[in-house]
Structure formats: structure tokens, C-alpha cells
């Protein structure tokens, strides 16, 4: 009975959403405040209904109610509680429910915290959110209903795919969706403004916090997913350019561009048309990602959906929303007036440069991801576009951007002085080269290019520090004043510096692990040892073990450096009993930012076992860097000026304060 109530709540949601997507529009067309006021209440009601429905599905998982087909397919009574809960979104239907939950959550947020928005804009935004919600609610009800029953109910479930039984999976999809779906708000703002035909600097000021929030979550979500793949798949890689990874990476690139262009629009009222287009494109890429992952068109670890009706349905959603949005854009864009002028060398110019590179990079990733699909659809020829393609194109494209990042914040709005900025960054570049030289001197080896890569990373760190120091006036004023000024800086200034610092940390991690990692594949018998990264691993033997829903064989290794014991590590092969599916549980031991990564292969007939050992220098920098970027995003979000938004009446009369050139 309770399951049917959950199902019913979903149907009610659809009805509520239809009201939400129509009445407010009629309201804005007729200028009727009563009809416009329907939007916030409908949005909050929609969220509550979805949350209720989702809670009931979770309840079915927690109580292992195998009369529900979805629970039977993806759960098992012996599964640990946390995976019973995370299993809710570890499958197609549940994952779409999570999508819907987060979508309605954002609508409710706009409804609750959008009090400072003009009534018309808020009504339109929520109506557009309503359309998206209605489309996806319909999708779930018609093609992916998680509440379908089985009769008779089976006694035991089929268990969740073992590689998904992991804490990483409990956290990764919600974070990713908070980012992915969060960009729907920017999309809705763009469409709402296009419907009304009014877009100005204030619009950018309202959109930016949403973009910032979505971006921060997406950054964390992608990093989490990368770390999950790294330790759970046992292949030692942290990024595979898998289409599913690209699906979340493309909105991230476009979203990063959006963050920066919205800044120009907010401060200088320039790049209006472009910013609106980016808002549309970013969420379009989110939708495309959803299509790629959910329709099963890909050959991929993640593609656990294989029903073509779903694919066609999402494709229809995709075409209607992207096509509709772009048509509306084409119709209205010519009426938008271009804003402030600026010289090519200026803060605006730097941000345009950023946008040019990020969108080109997104387009490149899109090409590489879709080309095999398009070619197969057209000619039937099957090809694969591998990591070398993406590494070459993406890597080369990003290089100028990385070099330019520290320049951006140092250039003035309207007309900047490249030479002066260059002089100020002279020290940063020196620090970068000096640190890279020290690394070369102490460690040595590896390709020369790698040291330049490291130098770029260090230079970005120093550049971010330079930015903060200049803002605080270090060297020009006394230390006390500088300290006070530093703490008085707006949150967005700290956010920018942190995010750019994070990029530098990531660069260092990527370069170090790519150039200096070592891999050793050896056949080991108890007592044998292998040396990686200066550490000696000695294989002590195997042990049989048993988990709640699996059996495992674990190898024990002792780690020593120069004869001194440094610890131990277990690496195992598991067999999940319900699905008879083996998995590799890598043994990972962290030393500073570097890691030893041990994964077990096949047992040999003579009692030995194949062991694969990697030394991964500075690899943790990759995820720490992403974490720093995310923190930067949230710090920036705490900026008071973003929270209070633009004062409405005064905004025409008084342009954004020049001092606010913080970002």
C-alpha cells in the first residue's frame, strides 16, 4: 500500500507541475499578481511531493521489499544498510528519481530564496523549471517507474552491481546531480528573461550565485567520481575520458565559462547575448549527458540502461528543450542591446579569452564523444576515440589558458595594462621555475617537459598568492594595514584566488603522476618483494575472508623504505555471491600526497600471484585541487554582495561600484 502512495505522489507531482508551468505564464502575460504567486507555492509543493515519493522508495529499499521490481533487481537483504540506501540511486529508475528530486529542490530554493527577484522574473523562472520537471516526471511515470510491483514477490533480491557497492557511489551521484541539475536554474533564468525580453546586469547578478553553486557541486561531484574510479576499478587510472565522464565534464567546462562571462555582464553589462547563450548551452550539455548515460547508447561501465523507448523519450526532451530554447534565443537575441565597450587587453578581454578556450575545449570533448556514435549511426562503422585524442587536443588547448589565469585578476576593467600585470607576475613565474628546478635537482629523471608542466603549476599557485598580496597592498602599506585589508577583502576575491590556486594544485598533481608514476607487474610468491617509488613491498601471503555479501582473498604486503618498516597494505579480490561477480579491491597506502597502489591479478599454477604495483607521486593533489576549487566556489558564494543581490530601483542610476572589481 505504501508503495502505491509513493507512486501516487509522483502522479500528483506531475499535476502540480503542470499548474506550475502554465498559470504563472498566464499571470505574467496578463500582469496578474495572483496567478504569478501560484509559482512559488507550486514549486515548494512539488518538492515536498517528490521528497515524499523518494522517501517511500528509500523505505522500500531499507526494508528490502522485494515485491517492488526495482528493489528486487538492485538490492539484497544481506547488503549493508548504507548500500541499501545508496542503491536507491544506483540504478536507472532510482537515479532518475534523484534527478527529479534535485530538480524540484532547486525550484523550491528559487521559490524560497528568490524573494528579491522581480515577481515577473520569478514566476517565469519557476514556470520554466516546471516544464523541465513535468518532462522528467512524465519520463519516469511512463518509461522508468520505480514503483512497479512483482507478483508473487521473490524471496531474495539480485543485489546491486558490486562495483557500485561503495561509499563513493553513495556520495558521487547526489553531488554530481546537484551540479548537473543546478544549471537548470541558469537555463530557466535565461528562458524567463528571453520570454520577457529584458536582460540587464541585474539579471547576471541573480544568475551568478546559482551558477556558482551548481559549479561548486559539479566540481566536487566530478572529483569524487574520478577518485571512486581510481580506487574502486583497480586499474589505477583517475580519468579515462569515458563518455560518461565526458558527459559531466562538458557541462563543467561550459559552466566555468558561464561563471566568468556572467561576471563581465554583471560588472560591465557586456557579453549579454553570449552569457544567455551559455546559460542555455550549459544545461543543454547536462541534458545531453543525461541522454548519453540514461539511454544506453554508449558502451560503457556506467550505461546500465538498455531500453530504447527511454532513449527516444529523453532524446525528445532534449530536442524540444534545446531546440525550443535556441529558437527563442534566435528570435530574441537581436533585440538585446550590446553593453559596455572594452579594449582587447582588459579584464573583460581576459574573460573573453577564458570563454573562447573553455567553450572550444567543451566543443572538442563533445566532438570526440559524439563522433563514434554519429559515424556508427550514419555508416555502421565502429570506431573508438581513445584517451590519446582527448589528451592531445584538450591538453594543448588548455595550455594558453593556464598561463593566462594569473593575468586575469590583475588586469583592470575596460582597459588593462598587460606589461604592468606581466611585471607583477614576474616573481610568480620566477617562483614557478625555481621550484621546478628544485624538484629536478632533488628528484631528477623524467622528461624535461614535465618540469615545465610543474613550473606552470607552481606559477599558478604563486600567481594566486600574488593576486591576494596585491589586493592587500603588501609592500605598499604597513603589515598591520595589509593584514586588515586582506581580511576586509570580499569573499569573491578569496573565492577567485582559491579556485585559481586549486587549478594550479591539480596541474601539479596531473603532471607529476603522468610523468613520474611507475608501474610494476610482477609475479610474486610469499617472501618476494618489489620496489616502487623507493618503497619495498614484500608479499607475505594470502588470506581468505568473508564479508556480508561476498567472499574475498586478500594479499598482505609489508612496506619498507631503506630497511625501515613503513606500514602494511591489504589488497583483495572479492567474489560477490549473489551475482557471482568478481571485483578487485586495490590496496592503497598514502605517503604525503603520493600513494602506493597495489592490485592483485590471477593466481599462477605454481602458487605465485600476479601483482600490479604503481607508485603514484602527488596523485592526491588532483582531488585536493578540485576540493580547493569547490571551497573557492562556496567562499565566493558567501560574498554578501551576491546574497543581497542588486538593489532594484537604483541599479540603472548607479552602475556597479568600481571597487567591486574583485573577481
Amino acid at each position, binding site marked *: 500500500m505504501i508503495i502505491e502512495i509513493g507512486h501516487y505522489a509522483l502522479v500528483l507531482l506531475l499535476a502540480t507541475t503542470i499548474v506550475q508551468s502554465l498559470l504563472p505564464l498566464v499571470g505574467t502575460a496578463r500582469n496578474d499578481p495572483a496567478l504569478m504567486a501560484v509559482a512559488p507555492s507550486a514549486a515548494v509543493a512539488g518538492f515536498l511531493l517528490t521528497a515524499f515519493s523518494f522517501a517511500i522508495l528509500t523505505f522500500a529499499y531499507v526494508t528490502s521489499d522485494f515485491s517492488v521490481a526495482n528493489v528486487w533487481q538492485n538490492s539484497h537483504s544481506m547488503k549493508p544498510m548504507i548500500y541499501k540506501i545508496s542503491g536507491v540511486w544506483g540504478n536507472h529508475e532510482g537515479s532518475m528519481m534523484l534527478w527529479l528530486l534535485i530538480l524540484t529542490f532547486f525550484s523550491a530554493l528559487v521559490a524560497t530564496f528568490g524573494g528579491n527577484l522581480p515577481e515577473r522574473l520569478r514566476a517565469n523562472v519557476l514556470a520554466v523549471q516546471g516544464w523541465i520537471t513535468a518532462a522528467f516526471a512524465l519520463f519516469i511515470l511512463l518509461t522508468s517507474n520505480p514503483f512497479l510491483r512483482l507478483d508473487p514477490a521473490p524471496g531474495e533480491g539480485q543485489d546491486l552491481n558490486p562495483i557500485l557497492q561503495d561509499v563513493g557511489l553513495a556520495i558521487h551521484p547526489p553531488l554530481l546531480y546537484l551540479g548537473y541539475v543546478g544549471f537548470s536554474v541558469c537555463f530557466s533564468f535565461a528562458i524567463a528573461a528571453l520570454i520577457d525580453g529584458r536582460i540587464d546586469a541585474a539579471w547576471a547578478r541573480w544568475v551568478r550565485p546559482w551558477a556558482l553553486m551548481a559549479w561548486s557541486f559539479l566540481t566536487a561531484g566530478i572529483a569524487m567520481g574520478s577518485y571512486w574510479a581510481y580506487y574502486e576499478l583497480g586499474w589505477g587510472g583517475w580519468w579515462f575520458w569515458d563518455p560518461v565522464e565526458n558527459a559531466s565534464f562538458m557541462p563543467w567546462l561550459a559552466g566555468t565559462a558561464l561563471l566568468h562571462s556572467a561576471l563581465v555582464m554583471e560588472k560591465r553589462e557586456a557579453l549579454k547575448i553570449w552569457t544567455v547563450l551559455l546559460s542555455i548551452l550549459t544545461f543543454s550539455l547536462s541534458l545531453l549527458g543525461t541522454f548519453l548515460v540514461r539511454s544506453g547508447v554508449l558502451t560503457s561501465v556506467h550505461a546500465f540502461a538498455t531500453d530504447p523507448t527511454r532513449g527516444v523519450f529523453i532524446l525528445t526532451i532534449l530536442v524540444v528543450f534545446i531546440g525550443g530554447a535556441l529558437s527563442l534565443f534566435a528570435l530574441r537575441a537581436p533585440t538585446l542591446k550590446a553593453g559596455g565597450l572594452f*579594449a582587447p587587453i582588459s579584464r573583460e578581454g581576459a574573460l573573453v579569452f577564458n570563454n*573562447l*578556450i573553455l567553450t572550444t575545449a567543451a566543443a*572538442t570533448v563533445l566532438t570526440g564523444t559524439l563522433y563514434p556514435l554519429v559515424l556508427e549511426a550514419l555508416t555502421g562503422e*565502429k570506431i573508438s576515440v*581513445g584517451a590519446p*585524442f582527448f589528451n592531445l587536443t584538450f591538453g594543448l588547448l588548455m595550455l594558453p589558458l593556464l598561463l593566462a589565469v594569473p593575468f586575469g585578476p590583475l588586469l583592470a576593467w575596460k582597459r588593462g595594462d598587460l606589461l604592468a600585470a606581466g611585471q607583477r607576475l614576474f616573481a610568480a613565474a620566477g617562483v614557478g621555475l625555481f621550484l621546478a628546478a628544485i624538484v629536478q635537482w632533488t628528484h631528477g629523471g623524467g622528461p624535461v617537459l614535465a618540469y615545465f608542466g610543474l613550473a606552470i603549476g607552481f606559477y599558478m599557485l604563486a600567481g594566486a598568492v600574488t593576486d591576494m598580496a596585491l589586493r592587500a597592498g603588501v609592500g605598499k602599506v604597513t603589515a598591520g594595514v595589509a593584514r586588515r585589508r586582506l581580511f576586509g577583502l570580499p569573499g569573491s576575491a578569496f573565492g577567485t584566488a582559491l579556485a585559481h590556486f586549486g587549478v594550479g594544485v591539480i596541474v601539479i598533481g596531473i603532471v607529476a603522476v603522468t610523468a613520474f608514476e611507475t608501474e610494476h607487474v610482477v609475479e610474486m610468491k610469499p617472501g618476494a618483494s618489489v620496489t616502487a617509488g623507493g618503497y619495498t613491498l614484500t608479499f607475505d601471503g594470502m588470506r581468505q575472508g568473508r564479508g556480508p555479501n561476498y567472499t574475498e582473498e586478500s594479499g598482505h604486503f609489508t612496506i619498507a623504505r631503506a630497511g625501515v618498516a613503513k606500514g602494511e597494505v591489504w589488497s583483495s579480490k572479492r567474489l560477490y555471491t549473489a551475482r557471482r561477480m568478481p571485483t578487485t579491491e586495490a590496496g592503497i597506502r598514502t605517503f604525503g600526497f603520493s600513494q602506493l597502489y597495489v592490485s*592483485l591479478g590471477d593466481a599462477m599454477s605454481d602458487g605465485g600471484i*600476479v601483482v600490479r604495483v604503481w607508485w603514484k607521486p602527488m596523485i592526491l593533489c588532483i582531488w585536493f585541487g578540485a576540493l580547493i576549487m569547490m571551497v573557492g566556489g562556496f567562499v565566493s558564494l558567501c560574498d554578501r554582495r551576491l546574497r543581497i543581490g542588486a538593489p532594484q530601483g537604483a541599479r540603472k542610476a548607479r552602475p556597479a561600484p568600481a571597487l567591486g572589481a574583485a573577481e
Partner: protein
Amino acid sequence: MTRKQKRLAVIGGGVGFLVAAVLLVMFAFSQSIAYFYVPGDLQKTEVPPGTRIRLGGLVEAGSVERGSGSTVSFVVTDTIGTVPVTYTGILPDLFREGQGVVAEGAFTAGSQVFVADTVLAKHDETYMPKDVADRLEAQGVTLGGKETIR
């Protein structure tokens, strides 16, 4: 520079960047695309040694031999043709005889042996690599039971 010249310079720079990006993409494509073959195809078309391809099919039952250290050799079949493959490294958890596999690598000069540097096996017990399933199905090969094409 006049304003018009400045604007032209900016637009020219942007377009130049895009053109460079397109050329880069095309170059990268020419370097890194791997075509997919099943053993039957290789009887009809010759793949020059050193050309990177993806070879898909089933691991022939009884063909897996572990050599010294971590080198493994096996035979990939689509019931029409067979190709011997060697691979050094750790095979995926789900690599098993009689089941679907995709090997990435190239033929070596003067030998019929395919040297793989990457081996992908299906991801769970009911999943068959999509490329393999489509191609085998097109050739009318049925794989029997639950292991058939999805």
C-alpha cells in the same frame, strides 16, 4: 590602431584560434581513432602491422595460456575466424573463456599474433560488449542462453 582595426584583430585572433583548434582535432583524430574488427573481418581485409585496432569476439574455450610472468596468450574467435592474441599485464576481473572480450592493440610485423595493450571484458555477467554483440548478431552467431545479445 583605430577601433575598427582593433576589432578586426580581436575577431581575427578568435577565428584563428578556432581554426587552429579544428586542425588540432582533425590531426588528433587521424592519430588516435581505432577501428573495430572481429576475427571474421580480418580474413577479408588486411590490417597493416602497427595499425591500432580494437579486436572483439569471444575468448575461445581452452585457449588461455599463461606464459612466464604476467604474459597471457589466448585466441579470440567469432566462430568464423580466429586470431591469436598476447597480452602482458593483469586481465580484467571478468575475463573468462567462452565470453566476450575486446582487445586493443596492433599486429606485429611478420607475425599473425595480435599484441594487445588493453583488454576489456564485459562488465557484469549479463553484459556483452556492445560492439561484439552487434557484430556477432549481424553474422548470425547465436551465443546461447542468457549470454546472448542484449
